[in-house]
Structures are given as C-alpha cells and as structure tokens.
C-alpha cells in the first residue's frame, strides 16, 4: 500500500486516495478543429512510461483535493507531490528510501 503525500494533509495511506491517471492532459481548446485522430490522441493515448510518471491523485476520503504526484512506475518510489496550481513538484518525497 503506497504512502502518498497530500499537499494539504500530509503523507497518508493509498486507500485514502483515488487515482486519476496521467497528469497534464489538457483538454483541447477547440475540439471541433481537431481531426478524429487528434481527438483520439487526447481521448485515449497516454504516455504510460516505464519510469517517472506525473499522475493525478485525489484525496477522496479527506480534503477532496486533486493534486499531482511524481512516481516511478517500476520502483513505485514517489519523488514528490504538488498542488496543481504550482508549476513544479515540491521537493522532498514522502518515502525515505534506501540507505
């Protein structure tokens, strides 16, 4: 069970949160101007990286805020979480790792 840091409420168990997929998917401003393929790209295509992943989590049982988390999809190590109105993740992860 992951330990996820809510930017407001601190590090908490994964079960307090719900997952929202890749962060930073921006809705096209003018969907009508897009081709079907371009629209499909927005709808369905995600980076799905093997490694660093910026993703959305919602503190569903708590403050109900959505926020961003930077997590490695292989080691699951979290390197930071950030409010969505901040450009960059806060430094310092929630999990002290290794020696």
């Amino acid at each position, binding site marked *: 069970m992951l330990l996820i840091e809510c930017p407001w409420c601190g590090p908490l168990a994964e079960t307090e949160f719900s997952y929202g997929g890749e962060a930073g998917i921006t809705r096209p401003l003018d969907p009508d101007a897009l081709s079907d393929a371009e629209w499909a790209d927005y709808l369905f295509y995600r980076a799905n990286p093997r490694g660093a992943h910026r993703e959305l989590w*919602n503190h569903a049982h708590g403050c109900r805020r959505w926020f961003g988390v930077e997590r490695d999809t292989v*080691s699951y190590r979290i390197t930071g979480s950030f409010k969505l109105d901040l450009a960059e993740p806060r430094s310092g992860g929630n999990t002290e790792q290794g020696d």
Partner: protein
Amino acid sequence: MAAAQPNRLREGGRIDRSRPLKFSLDGKAYTGFAGDTLASALIANGVMLVGRSFKLRRPRGIVGSGAEEPNAIMQVGEGAEAQPNLLATQVELRDGLVAHTARGWPSIRFDFGAISDSFGRILGAGFYYKTFMYPRSWWKFYERAIRRTTGFGQAPQTPDPDTYEHMNAHCDVLVAGGGPAGLMAALAAASSGARVILANDDSEFGGSLLSGAEQIDGAPAVDWVASVVTELRELKDCILLPRATVLGYHDHDFLTVAERCDLGEAAERRDRARPGETAERLWRIRAKRVILAQGGFERPLAFCNNDRPGVMLASAVSTYVHRYAVLPGRRAVVFTNNDSAYRTALDLAGAGAVVEAIVDSRPAGGGELADRAQSLGIPVLPGRVVCDVTGRNRVKSVRIAEWKGDSWENTRSTVRIDCDLLAVSGGWSPAVHLHAQAGGELDWDETQFCFLPGQARQSHDSAGAGNGRQSPGECLADGLRAGLEAAAKLGLEAAAIEAPATNSPGEAPIEALWRVPAEKDADRCPKQFIDFQNDTTVADIRLAVREGYRDVEHVKRYTALGFGTDQGKLGNINGMAVLADALGKPVSEVGTTTFRPVYTPVRFGAVAGESVGGLYDPVRKTVLHDWHEAAGAPMEVVGQWHRPWYFPRDGEDLHAAVARECLAVRNSVGAMDASTLGKIDARGPDVVEFLERIYTHNVGRMKLGRCAYGIMLGEDGMVMDDGVMARLGENHFYLTTTTGGAARVLDWLELWLQTEWPELNVYLTSLTEHYSTIAVAGPNSRALLEALGCDIPLDKESFPFLTVRTANLAGMPVQLFRVSFSGELAFEINIGSHFAPDMWRKVMEAGREFDIAPYGTETMHVLRAEKGFIIVGQDTDGSVTPVDLGMNWLLSKEKDFLGKRSLRRPDCLREDRKQLVGLLSSDQRTVLPEGTQLIEDIARTEPVPMCGHVTSSYDSACLGHPVALALVAGGRARKGENLFAALPGREPLPVQVVSPAFYDPRGERQNV
C-alpha cells in the same frame, strides 16, 4: 506420565510438567505438556512418521522444528473448527487437541498410494506434460484420478465460527524476529525513544537462545531474554507481539503481520459460549525503519534416501532436546559440513543419547566444538559423508563413505552404522525473504555459502543470523548496531547500551557440500531429495536441465522445486546449487527465484479481517428504511443502497403488487422514497459557464425557479449520467444524479473544476445525505399536498410543471419540485433527512383518503418504461450516445460540452447504430425477458446476426399488455417493422418496433 512419553527427558526444557495435556493423532490418544508443540509431543511419544510425500507418497518424518517443516502437515481440530495444513512444528499443544495426518490411505503407515514410489522413474519431473493426452476425450478421466490424490488437509464443511480483525499501526522501527539480534535491536531503538513494534513468530521470545546452552553475561541466555522482554514491556511506545509473523514487506515500508490470538493460554481460555474472541489479527504497519532479524534456516544435505523418517535437521534436534526436553533418537549419527551440528552432538550426548559418530565432510574436521565432542568420546569422522540410509518408516542405519572433499568421485568402501536418528546440517541460509520482498538485492557469499542481504531498496536493515552472523555473540552485537543505526537515522539520540558478553567457541569454516555422490550417478542412484514435500530430487533438476529448462524459474516450475507449503525454505538453496552444478555455472549466476509474500501461510479469514458477513460492505439506508421494512417491502440491492422493491399487501407477489401500485399512481396517487438520488448544490459566479461545459443543453437559458432534464456525457460521447437540475438563483443550481452515479458525478465535476478549469469560481456541495426525497405521483398528488397543508398555491399556473418552489408543507420546510418520472402529475418533496420520517408518515396518513400506495423501485421502473424514459445503466451500457437515445433535442449546437466532439466520429454517425425504440410482442402476452437478443431472420445458422436487444421489459397493468424498450440497429427508421425475439428454448417471437413512448405519448398528464 513419563512412561507414556518414552522420549521425554526427565528434566529440563521450557515445558510445564505440572500441566499435562491430552491430545490425539489419527484417533490415537497421547499426552504432552503445556509448552509443547504438537511435533515435540509426538516425538516425546515416539511418533516420527507423520506424513506422506506429495507425488511418490513416501513415508516422511518430522524434519524441522518451525516454519521450514515440509512433512508434518496436519489437519487440526474437527468440524467447523478444523484447520487444514497446520505444521505440527508450529501447533502449540492444548488440551483435547485432535489432529489428523493429511495424507496416506487407508493410513499413514500403510498407504496404497505408496505404489507410486515404485514407478518413481516414470514419474520424473514434468512427466504429466508428456502423457494423458490420448485419446483427447480422456483427459477428464485422467484428471479426475489425479485430483483424487491431491491436496493435504480439508476445508471445513461449515462456515468459520472464528472472527478476525485488522489493526493499523505506525511505528518508528519495526523489528521482525525476537531472537538475540531482534531483542537487542528493539531494546536499542526503544531505549533511544523510538516507537517500536517487535513481532516474533514464536510464542516465546528468544529465538535460537531457547534451543541452546549459551550463556549471556555469565548466566543462562534465557535469563537475559526474560530481562530484556521485561524491560521492553515497561518502555512506553513499545509493542511486543508474540505469535506474530511478518508476512509481507510491501511498497513504501508497509508491512503485514499476522498475529495468532487463539493459541496457548488464549486457546485454553477460549469460551465458545461467548463468541467473538479474535482468532487472528492482521497488523498493517507503516514503519519508518525496519530491522529484519528473522534468523536463518538450516539446510539439509542431499544424499540417497535422505528423506527417511529419523533424518532431521541438527538444529531441530537441539531444539527438541533443549526447549522441549524430548530426545528424538537414542542412537544418533550427526552429519555435517560445518561446526553448528557439533552442538547437536553435544546436546544429544548430554541428554543421554549415544552419538555413534559425527560425520564431517570437511577433511580437516571442525573447530573447538569438535575437540569437545572428542573429549566426550564421540567418534568424529572427518572427510567422510553419509551416502545412503536404510529403513523405510524409520532410519535403521546409515552408510558412510570417504570423500576427498573436492571430488565427486566416491570410494566404494563404505561403513555401515546402525542408528535411529540422523541429524544433518548443510549450513545455514539467512532468512532473506523480507529483504528480498522489499526489493533488496542478494549477494552470494562464497565463504558462508549462502545468500546474504545486499543493498536495501526501502528503509530496512538486516541483523543477526538473518544477516549472516553466526554465534549468539555476533548476533547480539549486530542487533545492537542495527537498533542504534535505526535510531540515528530517525534523528534520535542513541541510548547508551552495550551488547552483553557471551561464550561462543571458535568455529572452523563451512565447506560446500551440495550433493553427496553415490555409487551410481544421480540419475540412477536411490533418490536424493531436494524438496521433500514435492519429491523434487537431484535427478529431477538434472533432467530439467537436459530438457532445456535452464532458467532457475523454469526449473522451479518444471520440477515443482520450492512450490510446497514451506515455499522452498528447506530446499531452495540446495536446489539452486545443484542446478548451478548441472549448468556448470556459479550459484551467484543462477540466482534465486523471486521471493514473494507471504512469508508463511496465513488464513484467508485473517486477511479478510472483519469485513465479512454483515460487515462485508456498508449497507446504505435511507431514513425511511425502517418504515419500508415494517411495511414488509423486500429490498433491491442498488449499489450499496437497499431500496424497497415493492410493497406487497396480503400475500401479493411481485407481479400483483406492482400492478396494483402502478394503477394507484395512474389513477390516484402513490409515494416513493427517492432519497437515494444524488443531489449537488452548485453555486458561484461562474456556475453557468461551468455547467454549460458539463451538460449538453443550454443551461444559461434556464429561468430562475425552472427545472430541466439534463444529461452529461463522458468525453467519449457516451451517456454517463442524467437527472433533473433546477436553477435556484442567478448563480445557484441544484443538480440531481442517478443513485449509482451520485459519488462518481461529484468526483467528475470536481475533477474538471480543479484540474482543468481552476479559473472557474464554483463551489459544489453534496446534499445527497442532507435531503430526503419523497416522490408523490398521480392525478391526486396535488390534492394530497393540499390536504397536508401547503403555504404556497399548487395550481398549474402558480406552480407549473418543471419548476421548483420553497414551501412549508405539513408544517415543515421543504423544497418542492414539479417533476415527474412517471408521466403523471407529480411532486418531489425535498426535506431535511431528520424531518423526513415525520413527513412520510404524514403523507401516508393524508393519503389514506386517496388510497395512496407506497411504491418501490419496480413500479417506478414500469411507470417510466411506459413513458419511454430511460434508466442510465439499464437502457444504456456505456456505448450509447444521446443521439442513439433520440435526445438530439438536448444537444446544444451553440456551445461545446464534454463529449460533444466524440459524437462526430465516423462510428457515432453511422445510421445503423443501435437506437432506443419500443417493442410490442406480437402475441400481446409475452413479457420479453430483459437481455433478449433481437434477430431479423429466423433461419438459424450460427453465428446469427443480432440487430438489437431488450433493455427494459414489463407487463403494463394500465395498458393491458407488455411493453419493452430495446436498442435496435437503425431502430428509429424501422418503426412498424417486425423483428424476432430469440427466446432460448422457444420459437422466435415476432415483435414490432414502435415508439418508446407507450403511454400518454404527448405528455399531457404530467402537465396539468
């Protein structure tokens, strides 16, 4: 008493001789003592044969004294309280315990299945992949025969009377293992001020110290253990958990620990008349630091017939002698490649057994302990190996051969020694399981011949025997180090503690001995077992390699090595070394198989915790639930909600009750509890803009006090949810959602608001729980409300259809909506939930004069289906667009909204998409089963093309015939056409495609 326990030593041990306990195995009665395990009590009674192996059904004896035991698998208890597959070495004895061996038919001693052993050569690794294929249809018979022989214990036949629970905990330092290193580490960390949890697999703390004769600070080691445990108990913020096994080391330093609460004294105390004691508790622990001190596992040695009962791990023999005062044999031979087994020889001799010889494969023999053994007159035979064992149900003798140490060549001159016990030690493997589960690396050590914990990946450290330390002194020092380092990493000031003094003798180094050569090569000699439970032999591993299964994972899967209930604790390292030899590679290159949770098996019930039975999942109830129940309404499960399904009167069935309820609404008035609908208060300066983007219709055009039906789409254009919305103010809306969609829709709205459009100033507040909703429907609904006393005029002009008013009804503040899901004149009363029961009662009382019918979900469904109103999730399935539903009128052309672009995709523009239509059965009688598929052609050659399916279908009491809604390909253009309903087991029934609005198609009745 002693006579009944022939192998019980006169004195010593940590058993309580004042508390004899009766127990039975396979119906035969025995006696043991409090403090015994089932295994130690059996050995005390001279019982060594306890199991049959899985494949070859060879007789097997007790090998170990803990979790590594492969053979002594028992069914403990009877009836509902039976527990399958417990290890006798881990079962604490209690009075009246009933145990059964798990295999062997008709009995463990005479097992017809043992004939398998005679075919051992045919039943080599992977044999079943090579046969049972012909003829094809026979596999089910082969399989039936195979299954007849499979498995160990039996699941009880009746539900579990025990209860289990979870316990969430947080700590600074979790110490796994309460032996010398674990105790020392816990003491160091806790004394430094850390919050510590110490989990110990065993009932007693002390680990290996309980099984030996070591001295600490000049006193017996157990005294030191007692004093440390006392000290830890007195420290604040230190939790000691005996009988608690760390099962898994998961991500982010989350660990699961199973604490068995139903053993020992708790078991004696157990009082079935007052159920509810927790049998097992699953701790879910988030630790800042973890110290792994789970000790090590002694390895057996691979030689011919090394599985005979009476061949035991040397350390287990010592444990039985010291801890349980039991002598597993009278005439013993000890066979080793390292010094630790010399202690066993000394222990045996000290307990009165004759040690016929210590057979040591090392040409130079052992260290100080060897001298001690020799001084006691025990023959030490260096440079020799045990190459074979005789005796079937018990060791009778061993054959000893010379061995040159570095050569697989065996001399043919062997010596035979009679004995009834062979204590073996092939060296030690640290219990690196949790370290590896946590992602830590393993390093092969060429001096100790084992994998040691390497680089950690989470916040863990290893200590003691689990870290490759040998003597108690080294373990104590390593535990201290780990405890203090953990404290330092937490930023705590380290306590001033030193490791106590011990008296460990000097030891000679271990030498590798992975397989003892036999007269014939490994493929032809008597079996040399690696994994006892699964009958995996040296020959099997070599066969696997010959057949091309070379990766360690392939070998494991092909030979079943390590797939037993001990998960390879006993045999895996030996197996990997044999594999390395067969491949001609160093062990370090072969590597290990992956270590996976759980460390030792755990009851399903414990993992499930308290969320079973009535607490499996919350039941959500409206405030009117008690009334519905008292009225005898059966409940429909709708997500977590329980909703009244129908309200039967005087023995009515569903059909009769629903017909009556429907007619009541159509002809007079009915009332329904609609409280489960989702309700959201939305307000803020940008609320119109926000809702325009969410809903498909023109929200901004709604006038104050108006209601409107709205739908929202996923970005894929499919209908996601629907409901009525009302404009309460310029910048204030009230939204309703489906029952199942309530939480999802609010999350969906917040997602867009927070992540995509944070510039919009809107607040959303869920009012689902605050408001209860009572729907009053039927031509007499207005009269009913008037009878209740309403402070606003209810006539059509003052309070028209699709508007909302704040009012005082029956003396209570309410919001009244003139909306209708039945097509009748109707009102929805929204009222604070704490007032709702009162309001409902008053509605029922006032309704008596109109013969009001409370109605449930079924009637609601019929009424709306008669009108052709959809239910999202029943008439839609995630692949239905609003166009498919004929809701083009709801789609604004003037704005963008979520999902709009998707509606332009080629597939969404197809003319032959499935569209919502009504269906009439040609016979005017048949209620088409929901889910019926529709076909165009009754010539049936499969696959038969399907052109649609029935989504809703009911008998309509007010129309006098059944009605159905369906999704039909190109359906809107096919009105009047006939299709066929493909009814299983019946002739296809012609059905006519019609408009979905069966009743009052012009919508006049709701608008009066």
